[in-house]
């Protein structure tokens, strides 16, 4: 294992110090409990948005803290859910009197820790709602599992909900919109290589020189199946077909298409994938009205990508286009 770190134990602290050194003008950083909050928090009268999850998915979530998106993010250890005390402190720090929305990816650990935090925070008198993302169509039989994982839609949801919160919409409105985004979004990912967590030092799974793993999660979990690598067009087909069939997306739909890199894939390959995605979307009569291409929800240095499609409505487009000013996403300001 070769990484640009000091020791695995200090990784989170060192990274947070780097974030503070780089973005001290826009963030306040708390180390114990660990969270990052926008400098002007709490914004009075605005719904506060708090997310969090294991580290190793950067820029998500810390890179999405700022006007127009999240108010605070709680980083856990690598691939490990953060703890309730972090979420409780972050929630209090962003409570501007209009309530706080927790954005939680559907993993057992994240859900249980955010649940405990919500209980604690409600006991403190803060109004808290939670929305759980679960857009990963790679998880089948969700009745017999912990349910579908929350992946790419989380980024899109944080942007759209952030726009609505900045527009001073109520907690109920923002939560309802966020749930609609999740309900209309589907994702699937694949890997060319595994990733190595600093604590374990070992690859999360093994692939030979000509195999890819289809249907992976964002924690180095193995996927649905593995196969010999094919051209980009075939890989795009493998991911797009289950996505399109699941909602289903149908001819005439307006969509946002998000091609996400898992961390170790060059941007040029993501554009090649986007080209294939655009072809498949157009063959299905889908109109891509908005797109996002890049490394936004990653899995350390894993090579691979995920695709997310969101069926758009006017309100989503409006808040997607609204100004956002974070290290990870920025436009309109």
């Amino acid at each position, binding site marked *: 294992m070769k990484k640009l770190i000091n020791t695995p134990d200090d990784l989170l602290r060192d990274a947070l110090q780097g974030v503070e050194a780089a973005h001290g003008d826009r963030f306040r950083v708390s180390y114990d*409990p660990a969270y990052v909050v926008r400098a002007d928090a709490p914004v009075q009268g605005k719904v506060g948005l708090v997310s969090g999850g*294991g580290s190793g998915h950067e820029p998500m979530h810390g890179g999405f803290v700022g006007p127009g998106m999240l108010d605070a993010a709680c980083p*856990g*250890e*690598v*691939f*490990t*859910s*953060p*703890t*309730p*005390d*972090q979420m409780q402190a972050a929630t209090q720090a962003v409570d501007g009197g209009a309530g706080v929305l927790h954005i939680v990816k559907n*993993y*057992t*650990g994240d859900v*249980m*820790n955010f*649940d*405990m935090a919500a209980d604690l925070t409600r006991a403190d008198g803060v109004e808290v709602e939670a929305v759980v993302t679960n857009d990963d169509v*790679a*998880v*089948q*039989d969700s009745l*017999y*599992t*912990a349910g579908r*994982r929350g992946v790419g839609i989380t980024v899109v949801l944080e942007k759209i909900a952030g726009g609505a919160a900045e527009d001073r919409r109520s907690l109920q409105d923002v939560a309802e919109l966020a749930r609609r985004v999740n309900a209309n979004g589907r994702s699937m990912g694949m890997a060319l290589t595994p990733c190595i*967590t600093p*604590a*374990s030092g*070992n690859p*999360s799974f093994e692939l030979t020189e000509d195999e890819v793993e289809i249907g992976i*999660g964002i*924690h*180095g*979990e*193995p996927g649905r199946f593995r196969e010999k690598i094919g051209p980009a067009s075939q890989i795009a087909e493998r991911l797009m077909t289950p996505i399109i069939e699941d909602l289903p997306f149908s001819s005439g739909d307006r969509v946002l298409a998000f091609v996400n890199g898992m961390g170790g894939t060059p941007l040029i390959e993501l554009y090649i994938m986007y080209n294939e995605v655009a072809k498949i979307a157009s063959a299905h009569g889908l109109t891509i009205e908005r797109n996002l291409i890049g490394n936004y929800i990653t899995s350390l240095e894993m090579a691979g990508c995920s695709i997310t499609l969101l069926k758009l409505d006017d309100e989503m487009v409006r808040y997607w286009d609204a100004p956002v000013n974070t290290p990870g996403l920025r436009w309109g300001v």
Partner: protein
Amino acid sequence: MTRFAASMAEHREELVQLDTAIGDGDHGTNMDRGMRKALEKLGAAEQADAGAVLKTVAMALISSVGGAAGPLYGTLLLQMGTALEGKDDVDLETYTAAWRKGVEGVQARGKAEPRDKTMVDALLPALQALERAPDLDSGLQDAASAAERGMLDTIPLIARKGRASYLGERSKDHQDPGATSTYYLCQTAAETLAS
């Protein structure tokens, strides 16, 4: 507590390996970090009784383990601690009642049924062993053996809760990391009383 912490440190790598196979490879690190934090917290404050100790440990786990194991072990110990609060002398009956409360808490929080391939598959057999035991000493021994069997019995199961459930059929033939850490904790409890 020192022994629990030592046990988690000792088995850290093994738990990481088990979790790498069907999870995300952090269970050993998480438990080790939590136990070290719990030791720190215990060192800092005087504890009235076993109940208070367990509650302090529970809070330390909750605020430092993270993942699925943090809230679950936290809940287990918090419930046990509440049940043992103010009890000066822990006998088989109070211990069994406390363990029952703890396991109920874990099931309430995680919604896992037996044979879902989780720590519940080690926790429940341990409870049944305690319920059948003649005295505390052999109860703890039997609980450890029962937890071990429960842990081994997770190997052929298909996971239906937690991260391993995403693997479906591919989760078979792997031992559940959470059931494994439960066994080590039961084993340590038995050894501690014995010594």
